[in-house]
């Protein structure tokens, strides 16, 4: 079976769970005998796709004078996306964005006859336009390739998925890694919401990464429960099987937050809990690794609390730096306000770091051997941090059982379930065609 898959990121150029998840899933699907054509807006050339056929949308020529595209093209709106709409933006992106908007550098005005369009990739200011252009390229790709099923990851790729479905008639699966409600709380962007809803409605099947997300899809987007299925993410096994242990150069225990410093990830709860712990035990260091729109506010809060000598900000970390940080950490905290899944606690557990996760996360559905707290319950969070530092058997028990547990949360299992979804849809399509 051939799968046309639309993603927005591909390792190593990823900003979070979306890239990791769509890649992990693709590799698992390959193992079940699927062929994967993975489309990204922009390939950087240093990807290692293995047997995944990586299609760089920036190199796909679109003949926009062709009448087939004319209608679609006319409907595309080119709107600038203001920075608040860049929920995934990493520091890497920020730098590129700010360069893009240096005085004198105007965003490229779209030309209808352009043959290829070099996508900015990531989450730039003209994200909205890129999403539309990506859909245009998708119809071209759909014309050029044979495939049995279309699989689109998150709202950025839904217009592309819909377009490919329109051209080919193949079934469309949309995969919900996050919804606008997770990213933005009450400040939902209507346009993104509409795009998500349209994708879900057009799709033949919706895959949610957790029951929590499945409920959001059903309740907030009004999607028929019968076509929404939960398939939890997995985690890659560690290469050589041995987690990295890094020598610390401080004697204190290290408690780590790793993730985008945005509303969704609950960084302020981590800071307030750190303050409570430090009141009682000053011999602890807290690290906030990551970047995002709340970063400067968080730095100001740490300064105001007077804990800056014990609370450190690293900015955005690359993969190997993340491994190193896990290697030094004694406790990992994910206090997310709304986390559809949350792969990074699994990565921490895999590195023998005990974890505290918010109950408002999808990963809490698949993990028993973590301390779970409500994200808003700062007392409970502080208490859990304190306990993991001071009661050795708590750490040992949760790491010991957690390791076993996390080794059983495999992409391969997710791959098998996704394959079953494909098979159902293809089967249904065939029976419809033969009139049975």
């Amino acid at each position, binding site marked *: 079976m051939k799968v046309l898959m639309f993603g927005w990121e591909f390792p190593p150029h990823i900003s979070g769970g979306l890239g990791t998840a769509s890649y992990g899933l693709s590799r698992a699907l390959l193992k079940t005998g699927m062929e994967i054509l993975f489309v990204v807006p922009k390939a950087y050339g240093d990807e290692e796709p293995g047997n995944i056929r990586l299609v760089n949308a920036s190199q796909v020529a679109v003949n926009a004078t062709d009448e087939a595209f004319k209608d679609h093209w006319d409907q595309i709106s080119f709107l600038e996306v203001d920075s608040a709409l860049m929920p995934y933006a990493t520091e890497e992106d920020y730098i590129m964005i700010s360069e893009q908007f240096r005085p004198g550098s105007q965003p490229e005005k779209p030309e209808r006859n352009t043959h290829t369009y070099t996508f900015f990739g990531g989450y730039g200011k003209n994200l909205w336009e890129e999403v539309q252009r990506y859909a245009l390229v998708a119809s071209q790709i759909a014309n050029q390739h044979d495939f049995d099923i279309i699989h689109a990851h998150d709202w950025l790729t839904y217009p592309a998925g819909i377009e490919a479905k329109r051209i080919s008639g193949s079934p469309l699966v949309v995969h919900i890694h996050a919804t606008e409600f997770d990213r933005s709380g009450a400040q939902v962007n209507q346009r993104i919401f509409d795009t998500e809803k349209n994708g879900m409605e057009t799709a033949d099947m919706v895959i949610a990464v957790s029951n929590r997300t499945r409920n959001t899809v059903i309740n907030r987007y009004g999607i028929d429960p019968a076509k929404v299925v939960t398939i939890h993410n997995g985690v890659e096994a560690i290469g050589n099987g041995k987690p990295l242990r890094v020598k610390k150069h401080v004697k204190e225990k290290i408690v780590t937050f790793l993730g985008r410093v945005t509303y969704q990830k609950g960084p302020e709860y981590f800071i307030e809990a750190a303050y*409570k712990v430090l*009141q*009682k035990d000053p011999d602890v260091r807290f690290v906030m690794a990551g970047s995002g729109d709340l970063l400067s506010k968080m730095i100001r809060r740490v300064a105001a609390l007077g804990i800056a000598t014990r609370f450190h900000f690293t900015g955005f970390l690359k993969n190997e730096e993340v491994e190193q940080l896990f290697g030094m950490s004694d406790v990992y905290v994910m206090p997310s306000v709304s986390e559809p899944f949350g792969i990074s606690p699994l990565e921490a557990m895999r590195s023998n770091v005990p974890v505290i996760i918010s109950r408002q996360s999808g990963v809490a559905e698949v993990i*028993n*051997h*973590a*301390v*779970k707290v409500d994200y808003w319950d700062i*007392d*409970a969070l*502080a*208490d*859990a941090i*304190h*306990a993991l530092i*001071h*009661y*050795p*058997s*708590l750490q*040992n*028990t*949760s790491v*010991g*059982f957690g390791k076993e547990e996390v080794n059983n949360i495999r992409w391969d299992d997710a791959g098998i379930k996704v394959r079953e979804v494909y098979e159902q849809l293809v089967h249904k399509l065939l029976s419809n065609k033969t009139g049975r």
Partner: protein
Amino acid sequence: MKSVCLYFQVHQPFRLRTYRFFDIGKHHHYFDDYANRFLMQQVAGKCYLPANKVLMDLIMKYGKDFKVSFSISGTALDQFEVFAPDVLESFRVLAETGNVEFLAETHAHSLAALKSRNEFNRQVTYHSNRIKSLFGQTPTTFRNTELVYSNDIGDAVYDMGYQTMITEGAKHVLGRESPNRMYCSASSPELKLLLKNFQLSDDIAFRFSNQNWSEWPLTPEKYVGWLKDQKQDDEVVNLFMDYETFGEHQWAETGIFDFLKGFPAMLLENTNIKFTTPSELANTLTPHLPVNIPDPISWADEERDLTAWLGNEMQKEAFTKVYSIENKLNKINDPGLYYIWQYLQTSDHFYYMCTKWFSDGAVHRYFNPYSSPYEAFINYMNVLSDFITKVDSHYDSFIC
């Protein structure tokens, strides 16, 4: 088959309140008075009072033919006194009929037998005196917390003067032998052992309302039929279970009270099988065989071992730490501190920290006020840390 021995365990722990690490040293208020009162009164209304009434009616109707035994933990007695004195009164009324035997156990429903012979003896003696003063009888039969038994524990119990002890009829101990006989300890042969028939006990305690069970619904007719079908040379079927089975674990709507009423009536009216108590059995039966149990057994889970309380590292740390202050407490000899220490020894606290229940059935979950063993451990350790600090400071001023 000649007789049925009914023994019901009555127990409520002193549950801890949410106690954060920043409470350590600030205040020493450990117990969740609200939850303990609420739960005690709820169980009293759903179970203890209606079940006692059923038993009382049976005694009034069948006189000496119907007998029953209770073991009531000291923590339950303490809570009856404060939160539900009417329950205590109804047990007293039952005691006055002369048809009810009360067993001895550890005051705090603790696992002290596994750690400290001294503390174990102290709690058993205390509990026995308490039973005497409340119900007017001195227990001659001992039941240990969670039916935990080993040769060593048997020796300790025998040395305290008990003639009979009850424990689990664990398969790996009995092999092909029947639990329906009198046994004795291999190391203290004069200590008689009554073993729980877990099949027939659990049919009531765990399976009664399970609609997926092939025997559902369980009627008195069916159950009495099973009792009659036991082997000819069997002497006694020991039906040991939590008293909370009636009305709490198995809700009244399942018909459990009708069953509790119905099966003794049917047994007494249609068969020659009698109800009996452990001390009567000890006086009439001679041991069939000695049983050798070097490693402790219990009545929990498939394994019938200690792993529900002392299986993982957290449970072991908590258990070791709570007993680490025993000598200091004995020296200080402060009744208030000693009382709190006993409540912290209650086996339930360790049960809440069990990591097995993720895979091992809903029974664990049912009794657990915490949503995870990690939470249970954190809270317990915070309380214990504060208590240890308090004991240390008392001790320091004591030796000065």
